């Protein structure tokens, strides 16, 4: 059996998304900046895509800028707010300790430039409150950037409440909604979101294309300089096929958002319940307030990569921490942020489901996982020490 359970890392493209792309490869392949009909067909398609994306998040079409992915959108939003703040002498930025690296590394760059970065601590269940944000805001705060939902442990942040706080205090508010778009209801006006990032490949669209919503009136700062594309805010010939596909994929997900969430939540809860039968393991994050597809657990006495590869040998695709951090030697900064000690954080497993997963697949995971955990523990000197009482169990 083959089970893809790494949808937080990336998703399989939907038939809808593929079908949307194809016409823009060899038929309407023109450059949207070209005035002839092949170019204008592409320009028209982009206009419709912009309208569609805007409609999915309660924005206006002119507030959507297409980018080369979620990271680029995050970079652009943060740099924009920093430059606006800088001009007014405001150089304090509030974020959280468990943002994606696209956010954290951009903040690190600004810190080197003299910005003061304040990362709100995350509770042990992986939550952040609007009160924390309210308490942190200072007269020189130029940006609050808080993710909509966490990619590793699935926490859903109180974005509407944070938006209200930011609006009241007159501080720009950006949210990295890369894990949320297409999965959670988003209304940028109602939620008082000034800027929002999303990426197509997290909702069955193609990789390498994303979008940045920026409220009308926010003068975006270019990350990429070049031609007059995207109102001059993002140089480079537009990825028309990708953009059209992003819009089609997002719309399809949003059209089925509640039904997908219900289905995936049921699978998730069954999976969590089954996994927690394994001794000395624990769920990471909040059992209730989490993305429908997210399962993240730590197993004591074993290491995540081995677990991952043994699961892979059984046809189960999973992840240990974020896909982006898997090349690194350090355990996930997210798990450390919620207080997991290093030894336990190394033994983490993320299974992320989508609406295409089935109950049979969940059963298959539950049939295979305990044996693999038991085997790896059986060859682990750490486990031996725990069992023999030489070391104390943490979980």
């Amino acid at each position, binding site marked *: 059996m083959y089970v893809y359970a790494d949808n937080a890392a990336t998703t399989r493209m939907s038939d809808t998304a593929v079908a949307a792309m194809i016409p823009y490869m060899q038929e309407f392949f023109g450059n949207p900046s070209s005035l002839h009909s092949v170019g204008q067909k592409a320009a028209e398609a982009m206009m419709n895509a912009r309208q569609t994306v805007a409609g999915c998040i309660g924005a206006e079409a002119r507030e959507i800028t297409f980018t080369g992915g979620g990271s680029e959108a995050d970079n652009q939003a943060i740099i924009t707010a920093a430059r606006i703040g800088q001009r007014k002498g405001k150089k304090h930025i509030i974020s959280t300790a468990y943002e994606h690296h696209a956010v954290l590394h951009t903040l690190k760059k600004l810190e080197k430039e003299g910005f003061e970065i304040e990362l709100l601590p995350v509770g042990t269940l992986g939550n952040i409150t609007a009160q924390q944000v309210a308490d942190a805001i200072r007269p020189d705060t130029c940006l609050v950037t808080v993710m909509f939902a966490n990619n590793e442990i699935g926490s859903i942040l109180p974005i509407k409440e944070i938006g209200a706080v930011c609006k009241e205090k007159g501080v720009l508010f950006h949210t990295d909604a890369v894990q949320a778009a297409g999965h959670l209801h988003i209304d940028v006006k109602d939620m008082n979101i000034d800027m929002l990032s999303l990426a197509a490949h997290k909702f069955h669209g193609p990789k390498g294309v994303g979008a940045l919503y920026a409220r009308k009136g926010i003068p975006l700062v270019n990350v990429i300089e070049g031609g007059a594309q995207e109102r001059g805010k993002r140089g480079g010939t537009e990825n028309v096929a990708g953009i059209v596909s992003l819009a089609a994929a997002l719309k399809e997900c949003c059209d089925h958002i509640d039904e997908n969430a219900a289905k995936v939540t049921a699978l998730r809860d069954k999976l969590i319940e089954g996994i927690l039968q394994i001794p000395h393991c624990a769920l990471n994050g909040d059992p209730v307030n989490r993305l429908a597809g997210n399962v993240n657990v730590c197993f004591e*006495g*074993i*290491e995540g*990569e*081995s677990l991952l*590869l*043994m699961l892979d*040998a059984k046809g189960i695709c999973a992840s240990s921490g974020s896909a982006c951090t898997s*090349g*690194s*030697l350090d*355990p996930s900064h997210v798990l450390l942020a919620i207080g997991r*000690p*290093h*030894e336990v954080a*190394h033994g983490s497993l993320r299974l992320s489901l989508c609406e295409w997963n089935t109950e049979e697949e969940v059963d298959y995971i539950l049939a295979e996982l305990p044996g693999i955990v038991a085997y790896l523990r059986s*060859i*682990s*000197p*750490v*486990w*031996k020490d725990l069992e023999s009482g030489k070391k104390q169990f943490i979980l």
Partner: protein
Amino acid sequence: MALYTDIVMKHFMTPSNVGSIENPSGVGEVGNAKCGDIMKIYLKIEDNIIKDVKFETFGCASAIASSSMATELVMGKTVEEALAVTNAQVVAALGGLPAHKLHCSVLAEEAIRSAIKDYYDQNGIAYDPALFPAFDEEEDENEEGVRMV
């Protein structure tokens, strides 16, 4: 697999010499759980020959594969021959490791040496302490993602 060679995957999925030895002649344990790798090597030595060797490893696929390969490399060897086994030999025998995983092979070498030192110590065999420098986690200066053979 782009990340690991077939040999690494074979030694990871079906490692040789997994387990422990009752009343071992020497035991070595290196690494720490905080860093995500611990290797424990058990040796059975008779007439200066490694008659049996077993390992237990907490760690990633390359740690397990390195342990497995290291035990194969020392099995049946004299103690001196075993001491001469280097991490580079482990890496070569595995057909290469990604740069950021080379430290696993170092750990395997160290675990073997540590077990031999334990055997020397237990049996009151004199040795040059310079043979067993304090093991430091080596800083890996190679660029990420580069595979060294």
